[in-house]
């Protein structure tokens, strides 16, 4: 079937079906099952109101069970079976992963990503938010910094291939190096440092996010506190680090954890730039190596990623809970 037709049919069935389901189910509940008339009228209304939220939630719950809960459980179960999925091998996949040096490299690199990217993106975002806030053309500057956020990671990777290309006629970095009379190098093949060059891409994308959120937070800092500090003779650095930053720590943590979670599952950049070669493998791209070859190991890597992410997720849920009270 033609994709346009497929799309239209899905919209029609999805939205039309949803609205129809919703209207009809409410109608049936109110008129047929618990009609708001007759001898039990108040009991009927109460019962109808107990059922109603589930009518609103049902489509979402079905979708999420099918595409979220079932896969999480399914992946865990699958990770306990062998390559072809017919033999139960317990934690065999995990032990062979932990024994492999490729896995350890990917794990180490991932830890590096999770430490460096959120820290630098948040720091840069904070500094840029503060600097551009005082500028008359600050909003234009912000739009420019923020724009990479709208581009896909693959798109960003292709763009940065022009920066890193080893051919000095194409690559910006090598053009600069050769114009200073230095040898052209393939920066993506320098051990260890190539990881940092790849991280630059993600920082380039995520700084905009950090900047937008933090600049909103900085505007929320009460002016009197800044005013008082300036009258007491604080210099701009002291005002920034001792007055403004402490008041937005909660937001900084939210931004930091959001970027951390994002960083832990990014695979596009490594996959598109180096394919995980030259010691740049990270867990999500390492997993893709097994995609069609060994589902047991692929799911084992996925479960490990999930375990690594879970402390951050739990802390976020706790945070959300605290805000509710």
């Amino acid at each position, binding site marked *: *079937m033609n*994709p*346009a037709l*497929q*799309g239209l049919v*899905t919209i029609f069935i*999805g939205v039309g079906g*949803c*609205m129809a389901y*919703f209207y009809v189910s*409410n109608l049936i509940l*109110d008129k047929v099952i618990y009609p708001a008339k007759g001898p039990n009228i108040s009991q009927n209304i109460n019962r109808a109101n*107990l059922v*109603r*939220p*589930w009518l609103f*939630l049902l*489509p*979402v719950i079905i979708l999420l069970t099918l*595409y*979220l809960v079932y*896969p*999480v459980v399914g*992946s865990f179960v*699958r990770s306990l079976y062998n390559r072809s999925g017919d033999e139960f091998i317990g934690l065999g996949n995990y032990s062979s992963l932990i024994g492999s040096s490729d896995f350890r490299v990917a794990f180490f690199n991932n830890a590096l990503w999770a430490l460096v990217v959120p820290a630098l993106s948040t720091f840069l975002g904070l500094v840029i938010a503060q*600097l*551009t806030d*005082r500028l008359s053309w600050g909003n234009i500057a912000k739009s*420019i*910094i923020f724009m*990479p956020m*709208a581009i*896909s*990671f*693959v*798109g960003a990777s*292709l*763009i940065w291939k*022009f*920066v890193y290309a080893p051919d000095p*006629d194409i690559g910006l970095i090598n053009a600069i190096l050769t114009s200073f009379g230095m040898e052209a190098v393939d920066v993506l093949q320098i051990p260890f440092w190539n990881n940092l060059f790849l991280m630059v891409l993600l920082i*380039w994308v995520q700084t905009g*996010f950090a900047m*937008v*959120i933090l600049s*909103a937070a900085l505007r929320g800092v009460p002016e009197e506190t800044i005013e008082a500090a300036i009258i007491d003779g604080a210099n701009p650095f002291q005002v920034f680090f001792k007055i403004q930053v402490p008041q937005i720590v909660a937001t900084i943590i*939210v931004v930091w954890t959001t970027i951390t979670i994002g960083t*832990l599952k990014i695979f596009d950049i490594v996959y*598109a730039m180096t394919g995980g070669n030259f010691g740049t493998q990270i867990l999500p791209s390492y997993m*893709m190596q097994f995609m069609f070859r060994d*589902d047991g190991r*692929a*799911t084992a890597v*996925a*479960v490990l*990623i*999930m375990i690594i992410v879970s402390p951050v*997720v739990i802390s*976020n*849920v706790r945070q959300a809970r605290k805000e509710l009270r």
Partner: protein
Amino acid sequence: MFPKPIEKASPATQLSYKLFLPVALFIWLLPMLAIVMTSIRPAADINSGNVFGWPSDFQMIENYTAVFIQSEAWTYLKNSFWITVPTMIISVSLACLAGYALAIYKFRAALPLFFIFVAGNFVPYQILMVPVRDLSVKTGLYDTVTGLVLFHSAFQTGFCTLFMRNFIKALPFDLIESARIEGVGEFRIFWYVVLPLVRPAIAALAVLIFTFVWNDFFWATVLTQGEASKPITAGVRALNGQFVNNWHLVSAASLLAAVPPVAMFFLMQKHFIAGLTLGAVK
């Protein structure tokens, strides 16, 4: 006024601001500028080493038509569109319903359900990969636009519901209460009272989901195989192989993939930023 506008600062600070910031911004944009310039150069410029100077000739139209003629770019773009727009509509409308239920009704499961949504929002999608792929293969949805739409809708609905719930929770509850006292049916309350009030949230979500789904590469790689259903993000990587060493065509193709979300971003910047801020800080 604090912070002081920069115009009132000392000349030295002003000078460093005026010099440093534009330079920093220029460097920030340099990768983008380089690719834009490359995409409008004739091939001869690149072969003769004129990659960073002024183009000897502007061949924007020639290069971009070449991309469309020599490749499947048009199919990829259409696929992306037909994946993104239905997903946007389905997940936002489902989220309106679910968000309404979670925010307005008081029932015991509301809070645990809400936390499941928060947690589900952060589940790394790698863990879904193998079962979702097997499920799609079994149901015949593998390598179809519909399969991608269904999956993306489900995955994004979690985030959208969270967002909607928080937005509706912040609305004045009296409005709904008084409508109820007037005897307005629940569906009509949702349709005539709540929906008009959540329009800003719908706009913000629509922009966010559009960019998220348009830019998705992971599921495009996992759930598609052929040209017929590949979206532009996965397609651009294929083009990259096809146009090897034709850097002007590679860059034109990459820019094509980036144009819709970037255009969306500039047109709806206010909603985009409002969405991100609401989504992150709540």
